[in-house]
């Protein structure tokens, strides 16, 4: 299943968010649906806007990987909404809440068969600046580009191979979650990538990927999603087979 959405932020300053997801050729050949899921949304807390982006990648060998990834996105959004309404709450509670809500989302299924990775970016107002909270469990990559340069989170652990990862529904510790909490000023851009993309883009090329995506910002809305999906389907890496998902979020600037 292919999804595309976007929104222009008209609340306080300019910004842009969009994303896309396409099933990989291996899943298409096996007549399986896309096992990635994503969302990018916003809501108001005390009249100020909170932005939330999520990418989940269901583990390919699991029977309900697709359901697990969709549940991961729902759980992340619900957890973020609750957590952002509790000023001062530690990030560890956001992580625990997300874990519990995901378990509830998949309660009717064997959780191990629903296993999924999870990347989340959450942008909150913070005394005239912005606070960016990023979470990552399992492979895939989250990246932030700002005046302070490029910062990344997630990525495959040094001891892992492709398609071998921890995730919601696999045995893991809370320490397996990578967590960052940054104060952001000026323009910044956030990118969440499932491993179908992240594995084929070396970290030194992530700034170029940002630049390539920035070009999509300038396209008409209707053409943006179509063009992005087409590009992901025509992925140039020989033998590529994974589902591919990305979410792009820019705040500030133009």
């Amino acid at each position, binding site marked *: 299943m292919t999804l595309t959405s976007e929104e222009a932020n008209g609340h306080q300053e300019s910004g842009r968010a969009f994303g896309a997801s396409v099933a990989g050729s291996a899943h298409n050949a096996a007549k399986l649906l896309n096992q990635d899921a994503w969302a990018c949304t916003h809501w108001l807390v005390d009249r100020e806007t909170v932005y939330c982006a999520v990418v989940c990648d269901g583990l390919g060998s699991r029977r309900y990987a697709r359901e697990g990834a969709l549940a991961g996105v729902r759980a992340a959004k619900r957890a973020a909404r609750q957590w952002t309404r509790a000023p001062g709450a530690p990030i560890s509670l956001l992580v625990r809440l997300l874990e519990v809500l995901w378990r509830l989302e998949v309660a009717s299924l064997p959780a191990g068969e629903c296993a999924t990775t999870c990347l989340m970016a959450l942008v909150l107002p913070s005394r005239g600046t912005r606070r960016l909270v990023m979470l990552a469990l399992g492979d895939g990559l989250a990246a932030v580009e700002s005046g302070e340069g490029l910062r990344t989170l997630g990525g495959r652990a*040094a*001891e892992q*191979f*492709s398609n071998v990862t921890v995730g919601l529904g696999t045995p893991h510790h809370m320490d397996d979650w990578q967590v960052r909490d940054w104060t952001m000023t000026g323009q910044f851009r956030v990118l969440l990538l499932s491993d179908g993309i992240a594995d084929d883009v070396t970290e030194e090329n992530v700034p170029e990927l940002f630049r390539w995506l920035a070009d999509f910002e300038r396209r008409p809305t209707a053409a943006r999603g179509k063009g992005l999906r087409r590009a992901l389907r025509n992925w140039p890496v020989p033998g590529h087979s994974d589902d591919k998902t990305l979410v792009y979020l820019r705040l500030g600037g133009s």
Partner: protein
Amino acid sequence: MTRGKLTLRDITVNAPRPLPVLLLLDVSGSMAEDGKLAALNTAVRDMLHTFAQEQAGGAEIHIAVLAFGGLEARLHVPMKPAREVKFEALEAKGHTPIGAALTLTTRILENHDLIPGRAYRPTVVLVSDGVPTDDWEGPLQRLLSSPRASKAVRLALAVGEDADMEVLSGFAGENHVRRAAEARQLRRFFKFVTMSVTARSRSATPEQSLTLPDLGTDDGFDDLDL
């Protein structure tokens, strides 16, 4: 990279994901008896031929061949795409330094330049007909406890009646060891490994576990038809 028209081709790697296979092959003197080594050379050549033809999948099969005999383990074929391998027949001599082979295997599996993180989980196949003649317990422990090497799919084949099942079971686990008492069984084992690797290279779920088949009846090694 041009600053003008930027394309995904400029940003992405230009190689398929590797699916690595390591063959750890016993070339001790006893392998020359009863045509065991001849059968092994044929089986490896057939495997390489099949891998080289394999174009349908998403992954690219890479292979390395480690030969252990005499006093050392050495890279007979360094890790490279199977279609680029020119295999020269192995020759047998000397002792059975399995410990040295395990040490070299761990070093290869832990090397991110040889096997990058985007590679699929490697398959390691240990084939031996004898008893280790060097310290193997330490190297095996180090392999089993090393971060990446421990995650490889490990299979073992005992060739003939004299193979040390303890070391092979310790390496692969009892469910992933078979014994070949004849050339046909050896070829069947290699065919199975070949089929499972090529199936993984095409699969939407390449990390699913595998079950070794029964290798059939025992007619002895001297019924070779090579």
